[in-house]
């Protein structure tokens, strides 16, 4: 089962894990990305493309399913305004074998950072706002997967 979603509502990690795990799988790997409250950050805003963002998430999910033997895959990204501590992204990958579940999970979060149309804007308590710059290290990590 592949579940892909882009949503403005909070991500309910427990409910998503229950849905993902229905039936039980041998090995499940997860990645949970949360908003950091560094440097007095009060809001993280995620801008997206009305069509290409969700399509990009779906393409990534299917690329992972083609590459590894996966029993279930969940890829959910939040968009819009978030506060420190909120979950931005949830990746769940399950397989009969742990190595495939772990590899798929890492592939999905690495490639998500470079391939999917999402942009972060940070607003700080002094009112300053700035778009986050892409990091070269993210491109290097994403390229490892070919």
């Amino acid at each position, binding site marked *: 089962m592949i579940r892909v979603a882009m949503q403005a509502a909070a991500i309910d990690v427990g409910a998503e894990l229950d849905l993902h795990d229905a039936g039980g799988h041998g090995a499940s790997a997860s990645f949970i*990305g949360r908003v950091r409250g560094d440097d007095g950050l009060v809001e993280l805003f995620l801008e997206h493309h009305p069509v290409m963002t969700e399509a990009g998430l779906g393409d990534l999910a299917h690329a992972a399913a083609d590459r590894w033997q996966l029993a279930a895959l969940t890829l959910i990204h939040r968009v819009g305004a978030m506060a420190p501590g909120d979950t931005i992204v949830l990746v769940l990958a399950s397989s009969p074998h742990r190595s495939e579940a772990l590899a798929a999970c890492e592939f999905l*979060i690495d490639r998500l*950072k470079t391939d999917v149309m999402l*942009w972060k804007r940070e607003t700080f308590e002094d009112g300053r706002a700035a*778009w986050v710059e892409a990091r070269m290290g993210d491109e290097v990590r994403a390229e490892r997967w070919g």
Partner: protein
Amino acid sequence: MALNISYFAWVRERMGTADEVVDLPVGITDLTALLSWLAARDARGALAFAEPQRIRAAIDGVMMGPGAPLAGAREVALFPPVTGG
């Protein structure tokens, strides 16, 4: 040629609009030329496209490199490198 252009993140803010329809002059046939034309058109374009190497693009929903041709394109999206995850 009429072309829909949409802008995202700081490109959108610098352009002061999320999208527009432009009438492309003859000779603007690829993405590189489009960015140069927008940069030369007005002050907003100059600010948004001063560093074209920082701009990424999609034509009709597909990510494209700088030299991609515009022939047949209906919509071009222009944006900075993505920062999700």
